[in-house]
């Protein structure tokens, strides 16, 4: 499973999205379930899936799926183009 697929599955499971709703352009404001508990859940999921521990300020600053990819890429997690 590629990191891109892992991230997609994580986002679907954390925010309870359908496959059709998912895209790299997905923003926090588009998802009602991206609430404060959702932020915590996402941070734990990123740690479990990619081994990277998001600091609280990083987790709350993330506003889109693209932001997650950027943070992870900057911290050594590679995503296929």
């Amino acid at each position, binding site marked *: 499973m590629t990191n891109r697929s892992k991230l997609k599955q994580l986002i679907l*499971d954390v925010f309870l999205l359908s496959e059709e709703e998912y895209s790299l352009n997905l923003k926090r404001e588009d998802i009602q379930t991206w609430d404060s508990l959702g932020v915590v859940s996402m941070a734990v999921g990123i740690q479990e899936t990619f081994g990277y521990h998001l600091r609280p300020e990083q987790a709350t600053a993330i506003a889109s799926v693209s932001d997650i990819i950027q943070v992870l890429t900057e911290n050594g997690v590679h995503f296929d183009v």
Partner: protein
Amino acid sequence: MIQIKSEAAISAQHGLLASAWDSNESFIFTPSPCPVTDEWLRTLIRRLPSELYEDHFGILTSGSTGTPKLIMGSKYRTGELSRLINEHQQLEPVQNAILALPLPYSYSLVNQWLWAHIHGKTLHSTRGMADPQSLFRALQCHSASMLCLVGSQVPLLRRYVEPGMQFPEVLRLNFAGGPFPQAELSWLHEIFPSAIIFHNYGCTEALPRLTIRPASDFDDPMTLGAPLPGVELDIDASGGLRFRSAFGCDLIADEDHIQRVQRDEWIATGDQAERLESGHFRLLGRNSEVFKRHGEKVSLAILACSLRQAWNGELAFYLETAPDGENGHVLILSPVPGQPAVRKLLLHLREHFRRPLWPIRIEGVEAIPLSANGKPDTTTLCQLPRTQLWKQIL
């Protein structure tokens, strides 16, 4: 005081029950298998107030606590309740009661056996969903009948009723003793085309009826009908639903305590509820099925009702402490669904419930084990191999 033991050949007991009911002597009707020993019962009987040795009857229940309790009530006042039920459900045209639940349940005993006894109707025993074909034959053979079920029997009914099968002789169909099967209401009207379907609420301590309403009165299965005349409902400080009833029990006794119930005394139903602006009461579930998670009240009964809109199979819950240290619930589905069905349920959860109300996991099993009263047996369930279908990341 005599003890009548329920046997498999229930029909043989009708005469025995009738004699006991019509005599002045009190009796206790025990189920089979009986959760207590004869010695347990004899010891308790010796401690009962002497005035209960006449004109009363007793049944055993474990209620929401799992501890066996003896509930005793007045034959006269329970008879009055049966007449009230007859009036509220307009049961005059009904000639036959078809028994599909164990007779020692207060629901079967009062709504069916006693009703038939008092009003000169005929009671027909079946083994219920343990032998669906004999139940179906009874429903087809006996005209103008009344059937009492619990909601957890409906999935079994669905499994055994063949396409096109109908039971037009059933004129009244009662549900009590658990969540009302609202999601199956249309289907129930199809197979019982002549029946008025009733949503009843009560408990053994009430012997047993507190409210009766036609199912068509509300779309929400958790909303109760108005209390019967002589019955009051209220909510206590901890959100528990309680009642006072002119027809309720006179005594609640277990191994350690004997509680003599006064007519003006509030008795806990074992359920949590809220009062709606309309004045009606809305159930939230059994005390053990309502808990707080991240400060939000979770009602497993309400969750189950809602999830049935997105899942046609069977479902159950068990409780577990979540990895975040909070109380949590695990949703069990049967048969084991594929990912599209799981995703449909997840979308339903997202649409209707906030995150604290989501299960901490969804698991699948081949079949959900049921206890003798048709409710999910969560103890056995937790020992079965289960397939994890989704988990909440906590």
